């Protein structure tokens, strides 16, 4: 079984029919690439990450629809706009994650992982065992103002030691990023990010061990087989390969298994 731990669905204000069509396209890509299941989250490049409270609700409803239609195919992650009031975010989490079918949270570039404004919602996540996929990158160029880098994620991980964190984009975080989170046992890393650059996965496996590395493609920003090649390109024992491709994701996401 292969689980893709970093996956977007290009939806915006879609009706159920359009959502279904988009999901069928994804499932057809699963078939072509040998993927069994993935997380699914909103993709800012098809709308905005700076959405208001209504849009936050709409995104959550789209995800609920996806899970209703395809309960065995996706773990739904709610992309939170950290700029919204804490109460709004916590209400969304109560309704859609704690009392609803969504699995976890995606946090991205609107707010840096060190920002205290996230405190309320993160304490809530900690209390309710809600995992977070954090966008992350060490960028030389094209960096967003408040984009988190691995040092920021390490800071967050130490502040909220009970939250399970999946630090996104191994290729963007690089070797330095792997070292930043090495001592944060609540942080795993996904293999997505950029083109098929060699060497990063071997380094992460050596430094973090196979228990903390999860395969992810970043679809539709990337092609699934090209990113899957990253896992195929390294020598791994069958047990380690199974962890990276599947069982680490089962342990990380839990709800929705």
């Amino acid at each position, binding site marked *: 079984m292969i689980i893709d731990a970093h996956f977007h669905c290009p939806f915006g204000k879609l009706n159920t029919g359009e959502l279904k069509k988009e999901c069928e396209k994804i499932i057809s890509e699963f078939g072509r*690439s040998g993927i069994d299941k993935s997380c699914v989250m909103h993709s800012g490049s098809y709308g905005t990450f700076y959405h208001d409270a209504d849009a936050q609700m709409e995104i959550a409803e789209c995800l609920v629809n996806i899970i209703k239609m395809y309960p065995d195919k996706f773990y739904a992650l709610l992309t939170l706009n950290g700029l919204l009031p804490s109460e709004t975010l916590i209400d969304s989490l109560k309704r859609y994650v704690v009392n609803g079918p969504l699995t976890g949270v995606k946090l991205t570039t609107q707010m840096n992982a060190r920002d205290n404004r996230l405190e309320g919602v993160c304490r809530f996540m900690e209390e309710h065992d809600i995992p977070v996929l954090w966008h992350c990158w060490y960028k030389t*160029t*094209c960096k967003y103002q408040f984009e988190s880098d691995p040092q920021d994620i390490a800071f967050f991980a130490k502040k909220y030691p009970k939250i399970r964190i999946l630090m996104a984009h191994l290729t963007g975080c690089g070797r330095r990023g792997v070292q930043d989170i090495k001592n944060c046992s609540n942080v795993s890393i996904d293999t997505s990010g*950029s083109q*098929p650059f060699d060497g990063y996965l071997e380094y992460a496996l050596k430094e973090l061990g196979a228990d903390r590395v999860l395969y992810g493609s970043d679809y539709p920003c990337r*092609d699934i*087989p090209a990113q899957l090649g990253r896992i195929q390109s390294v020598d791994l024992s069958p047990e380690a390969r199974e962890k990276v491709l599947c069982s680490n994701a089962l342990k990380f996401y839990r709800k929705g298994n």
Partner: protein
Amino acid sequence: MNNPKIIDCSVWHGQWPFCHLRYSDLALMEKKLKSLNVEKAFISPFESVFAQDPHEGNFRMLGDIKDKPFFQPAPVIDLLLGNWKENLEKLYNDYKIKMIKIIPNFHMYNLTEESLAELVEFTSPRNIIIAVPMRMEDPRNQSPLLKEPMELPTVVVAKALSFYPQQKFILNNIYWGEINDLYYILKNTLFDIAMIEPVNPLKAIKERYSVDRFVFSSNCPFFYPEGNWNKLSYSDIEKNEIEKIASGNIEKLI
């Protein structure tokens, strides 16, 4: 799964200065690429990207691949260097080179009709392909010592290359989003798939452009070869179309 015969249009010799690359071991790279059905690979020296005299890197590479016919040399030419013409002639006469690479953004000259004039005068009648990498790596990940994104702007490439319809060019490491600005104006140009990564890349190419204008590059050892090989092997377009990208298009050219 498809397993076409492949001609790899761009691999590199030596080490990139900022990180160790496992397939910089030529024997290992050859073994890996052959296991993916690559029959031939055009190789250029990393050393020549940063070196004061790229020909030192070219000739070191030529020495290393002397007994390895799997590798076809694609030496790097720096058009600002005083002896480039002399060396190019030597490379052509002694090594029968079929492809060269130019890297204007690292060699600090502008890619223009004027800067290319003397080179094209030599390469075009001899049917030597000029390969031009749009970038060496993802600029977001480049060393902080490289202050600017080391990329070629598409408008510059369009203007310079369109002036020479008689010359064959390959653009390496181009992004999917850049092709549209170059595809129609540069009918003399092929695009390599190394950094092209829309969902289902070959199908996307077929639907939007023509498979006749694209070639395979693994960009090894920067990239793990499985990444680009998977673009072919997992593709669901017609076999003969995959074969064109894998080897047919470049075979026609050389």
